[in-house]
């Protein structure tokens, strides 16, 4: 059932995208200058049992798509304000661009740092990233515990990220409120969505179970690429 949803979603999405290019997150796509919902590289049901097909479908087609649409609306308003030289409106649009643009960036990165088990999801990192994690946190297990603690400590909606400091190259765990994106000094390597919509249908208030299960479908290959 999930496969049918995924295929029809892909066809619908592709037909809307006349051109696409890569920027920042590998999956950020644009059509005629507008942000578009990126395709998933796996079926909605492919991350089960960690994340159900129903959650994936709602999360991608409804939540992420709303961020894309609202971001495009905000950018249109921004362009109009710029055209008119209306500085006050440009400034007032900042929270909407941060929130919806952040939502688009975060989810795009998130889909890419997940993978079904059959496509390597959950297989531990190797190489330089594995070394950095071991050196910083002692072991992958210790790192995962620390991320899970950070996720559990988020008061409200938000994300936890493994980030790389652009100045020192060091990795660290940081949490961000709502849809605040990882920008500036830090580069996003691995993000985990701690909004209730990311897990509630499967786990309800038992969010610790979601944080534990998601490691089964983390795509460490993507994280390694971002790190290097």
């Amino acid at each position, binding site marked *: 059932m999930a496969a049918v949803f995924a295929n029809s979603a892909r066809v619908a999405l592709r037909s809307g995208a006349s051109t696409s290019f890569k920027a920042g997150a590998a999956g950020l796509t644009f059509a005629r200058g507008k942000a578009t919902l990126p395709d998933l590289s796996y079926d909605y049901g492919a991350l089960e049992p960690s994340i159900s097909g129903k959650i994936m479908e*709602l999360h991608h087609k*409804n*939540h992420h798509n*709303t961020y894309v649409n609202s971001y495009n609306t905000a950018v249109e308003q921004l362009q109009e304000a710029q055209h008119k030289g209306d500085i006050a409106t440009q400034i007032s649009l900042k*929270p909407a661009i941060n*929130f919806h643009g952040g939502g688009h960036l975060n989810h795009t990165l998130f889909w890419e740092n997940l993978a079904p088990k059959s496509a390597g999801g959950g297989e531990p990192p190797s190489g330089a990233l594995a070394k950095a994690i071991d050196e910083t946190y002692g072991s992958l297990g210790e790192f995962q515990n620390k991320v899970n603690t950070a996720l559990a400590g988020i*008061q*409200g*909606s*938000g994300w936890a990220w493994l980030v790389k400091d652009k100045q020192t190259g060091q990795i660290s765990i940081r949490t961000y*409120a*709502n*849809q605040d994106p990882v920008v500036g000094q830090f580069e996003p390597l691995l993000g985990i969505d701690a*909004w*209730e*919509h990311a897990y*509630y*249908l499967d786990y*309800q*208030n038992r969010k610790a179970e979601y944080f534990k299960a998601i490691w089964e479908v983390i795509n460490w290959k993507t994280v390694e690429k971002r790190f290097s």
Partner: protein
Amino acid sequence: MTHTLPPLPYAYDALEPVISKQIMELHHQKHHQTYVNNLNAALSSQVGATQANDVPTLISLQQKIRFNGGGHINHSLFWKNLTPPGTPGNDLAGAAPSLKEAIVSRWGSEDAFKKAFGAALLGIQGSGWGWLVSTGGPKSRLDITTTKDQDPVSAEDVPVFGVDMWEHAYYLQYLNNKAGYIEGIWKIINWAEAEKRYTAGVENPVKL
């Protein structure tokens, strides 16, 4: 003395079809209970830190108290400002004559108020609450305000009623259709409780 979960003033399924029994059970027994437990833990740590004159720990506890204490306050207010659909309390004109008059004089009409309130709820970016407050005390200027996460309304303002916009408040039933939840909530607002708060204010909602 520790805080305890207040019982609901109605059955878990009493707000159906607007809010399902499953949501109410989870929301009250799990979410609200967790705020109560974490508040008690933070307050107990605070006693120890105060006795030890451990200022860094005292400071680090403030955010936990704000979040979990806010969660306890907000939910305690919320349960009481809801009532089963079709009950006398749910009739604005009948149950809340002074509040209705104040709403109409402030927003022009009940509908205009509901529209403005709904827009404020939809504008929350992340988890939070929407409130009708009487600013500065009872029977004062009405305002629509939102608070993020579990922040309570300002201490000097009277929370006339609140609507929980955390996803756990509606997601099992409404999924991403926030507007559907907001439309439904008007059918279960307890205007009798809102009138009481508007005219007489609210005593500490989590008094031991």
